[in-house]
């Protein structure tokens, strides 16, 4: 079992899939000669050549559309956004073409494509470069949306995304590319649409994904071994991993066990994925709830550059802990 960084796990997933399937190619800004803004594609140009590792000009609409057009012809493009903030300029391509083409053509065409890159806040990048696009894309029928937080999940799910016959939005995180974790030496593919229990527990269900996963695990530790003399809580941390379709079965099984839920994520509260989860829980586990479902996410404001302001805006373990205690009446 190797210890890999997330960027290495992503690179290995791309490499293995490109070796496995000639139709797979990687396209994006700085993916070739520069080897990726975050070095996810290091060495791939040397291995596969410029035909399959394709540097683009700064044309998100253009290369997103080219990827879609190529996918409609049967290729398996991986489109890298240097950051998902730039996908905003390709938004029309993704929602009006990638997500719609299969339906709008009566099933004549499909669009097997992966749009991947870092999502949500990093460190002091200001409002335009710190946005979480989870809710934007998870809102769209016809897309699948994945968010990873460990090397194991990153590799297994990116391979699944590349093989998926549908358009898949694949969220990574700039500050997590160096996170290390165990990755099996043998090949494996994970299933899109399955959540993963990162820490089992019985008192509160903590639903999370992406960058909020380590924050949530930290909060669960604080809850289990409180330093302030309060009652310890056994928190079940569930990494949703896929934001569309959501693994409601896993969510409901846990909530029916713990009777309380907190959703912690990077993203705005209004109309967010957390709101979707809360809605589903209250509809399908109403009689199991002992407390209202709470969300811990960005404050409902644009991100500030200043370090202290940014820190205040992003969910911290202490805030998640407070929410866990609130629903557990501790």
């Amino acid at each position, binding site marked *: 079992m190797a210890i890999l960084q997330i960027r290495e796990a992503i690179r290995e997933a791309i490499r293995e899939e490109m070796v496995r399937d000639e139709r797979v190619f990687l396209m994006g800004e700085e993916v070739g000669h520069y080897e990726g803004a975050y070095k996810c594609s290091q060495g791939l140009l040397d291995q596969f050549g410029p035909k399959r590792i394709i540097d683009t000009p700064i044309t998100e609409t253009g290369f997103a559309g080219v990827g879609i057009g190529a996918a409609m012809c049967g290729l398996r493009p991986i489109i890298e956004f240097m950051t998902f903030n730039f996908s905003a300029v390709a938004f029309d391509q993704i929602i009006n*073409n990638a997500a719609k083409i299969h339906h709008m053509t009566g099933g004549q*065409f499909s669009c097997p494509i992966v749009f991947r890159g870092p999502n949500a806040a990093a460190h002091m990048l200001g409002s335009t470069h710190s946005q979480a696009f989870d809710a934007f894309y998870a809102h769209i029928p016809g897309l699948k949306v994945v968010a990873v937080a460990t090397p194991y999940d990153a590799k297994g799910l990116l391979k699944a995304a590349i093989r998926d016959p549908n358009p898949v939005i694949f969220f990574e995180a700039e500050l997590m590319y160096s996170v290390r974790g165990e990755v099996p030496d043998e090949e494996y593919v994970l299933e899109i649409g399955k959540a993963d229990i990162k820490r089992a527990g019985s008192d509160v269900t903590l639903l999370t994904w992406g960058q909020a996963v380590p924050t949530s695990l930290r909060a669960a530790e604080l809850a289990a071994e409180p330093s302030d003399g309060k009652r310890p809580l056994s928190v079940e941390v569930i990494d949703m991993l896929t934001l569309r379709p959501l693994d409601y079965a896993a969510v409901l099984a846990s909530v029916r066990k713990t009777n309380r839920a907190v959703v912690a994520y990077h993203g705005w509260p209004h109309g967010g994925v957390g709101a979707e989860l809360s809605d589903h829980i209250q509809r399908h586990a109403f009689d199991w709830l002992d407390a209202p479902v709470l969300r811990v996410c960005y404050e409902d404001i644009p991100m500030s550059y200043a370090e202290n302001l940014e820190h205040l805006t992003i969910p911290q373990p202490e805030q998640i802990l407070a929410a866990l205690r609130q629903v557990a009446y501790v």
Partner: protein
Amino acid sequence: METPEQDAVTVPETLKVAGKDETLHAYREMLRIRRFEETAARAYTRGKISGFLHLYIGQEAIAVGTRMAIESGDRIVTTYRDHGFALAQGCEPNACMAEMFGKKPGLVGGVGGSMHFFDRARGMWGGYAIIGNHVPVAAGHAFASKYTGDGRVTLCVLGDGAVGIGPTHEGMTLAGLWDLPIVFIVENNRYSMGTPLERTLPVEDITLRAPGYGMACDRFTVSDPFQVRDRIGAAVKRAREENQPTLIEVLTYRFRGHSMSDPAKYRGKGELEAHRARDPMEMTGRALRDIHGMTEADLDALDEAIIAEMDGAEQFADEAPQPDPEHRFRNIIIETTEENA
């Protein structure tokens, strides 16, 4: 921009040299498009067709000429004004009309309507209704052809109103940068919806952009389908044999408003009449009479047969069932299987 001269209504040279069979074929195809659209317009006024209905009447020679310039397997990617190319590519009038009626046997099962015609088997690759957003997609088709070496050419049709929008620029940039086998055909019908191009384009000659994209270019006023075939054919050959994109501006004129709801009051006085006098379809009909010895009665008989065909299409669409209710849940997400992974 060339302006038609009312007295210069002689049969163009390209028509004179065309053979009788191909002339008759081109005339029939243009007439089919026109009668189809007139039938659709009538159905629209009867409330049988809803949404937007953008007619191609006046521009038929471009679709028919382009079809004569390409091979089976080449790809047509066009705008929401897509009936002409669909019929020219061989799509069934019944399926096209049923699509506009929102019926089950429609071209895409009734989910698309007038603006979203797709018929993969006949090389009709859409039907895109967001202005310009098909240009990168078409470039992607050409990218795939180059990637796989399938020898196919992609023809991307757009209107003069689409040249200012971002995706057009980005798609053409990438096509030029990567030497993709694609032909961009700008159908310049002089109006971006209701706004004349003097008020939408900084430079009227759209092909002046081609050098900036590193592309060859061509620009002409449509006279007849064979002229279109020859001029576009050259670009198709360049794409297929040299992997070189071309930007072609085709000066044309639509005789109807932008869509059914447009009275086209923005036209100048006499403008429509001047263009009608040079209607490429009428020119083709004149060639059949004047050069190939067909009579007015022959053409009338042809017309009546086509009208009957289109009336039949309308009746077919009218009587066809609506899509099954559960159809709305289909074709959204594809089940992942061993085969498609």
